[in-house]
């Protein structure tokens, strides 16, 4: 397995609370991505990063923010969680341009 660790693996929280998910890699890959996976929608890109402090929005970025202060860590924050953000969140890493992406095992987030 690629050296990708997502934490926590499972979380249940209440509407309106802040939530931060962490993706940690040991591969020193430049690119990192956050996706959400929902039935009927496949994997959709939330935010991505080209390098330290270099991030951009994906297809479904509303309600999410990210930070990358170190190469190895990419954080996804839900400032005020809503029930529509209940999903499985996946982090992916990519070594260089046009290289394949490798995924972590996901975080299952439930917002009640």
């Amino acid at each position, binding site marked *: 397995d690629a050296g*990708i660790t997502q934490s926590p693996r499972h979380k249940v929280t209440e509407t309106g609370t802040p939530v931060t998910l962490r993706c940690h890699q040991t591969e020193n890959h430049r690119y990192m991505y956050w*996706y959400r996976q929902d039935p*009927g*929608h*496949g*994997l*959709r*890109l939330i935010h*991505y990063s080209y390098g330290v402090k270099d991030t951009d929005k*994906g297809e479904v970025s509303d309600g999410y923010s990210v930070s990358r202060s170190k190469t190895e860590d990419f954080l996804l924050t839900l400032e005020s969680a809503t029930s529509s953000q209940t999903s499985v969140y*996946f982090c*992916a890493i990519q070594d260089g*341009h*046009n290289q*394949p*992406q*490798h*995924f*972590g*095992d*996901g975080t299952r987030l439930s917002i009640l």
Partner: protein
Amino acid sequence: TQLLEQSPQFLSIQEGENLTVYCNSSSVFSSLQWYRQEPGEGPVLLVTVVTGGEVKKLKRLTFQFGDARKDSSLHITAAQTGDTGLYLCAPRNAGNMLTFGGGTRLMVKP
């Protein structure tokens, strides 16, 4: 907006049967990746195809990229129960971004 369709959405077969799943788009891709995902895990890369008409084999799995680089297929010969999973195609656009299809959920019964 690139439209991406995977078919069939669901497939249930007996062990030993052959099957083909498809990935079609309205756009031309620079490359395409196939992944398999099992419950509770992240997608695992199977193959990347880059050249139009390219065929790649991975044991009993044969991947083909369409000549026009708008479509791809995955053929499994003599399916085994271990092939059960969600198969995802992910073409890459010129901007280095992947788009994921909804996947084909394959169940291989013993």
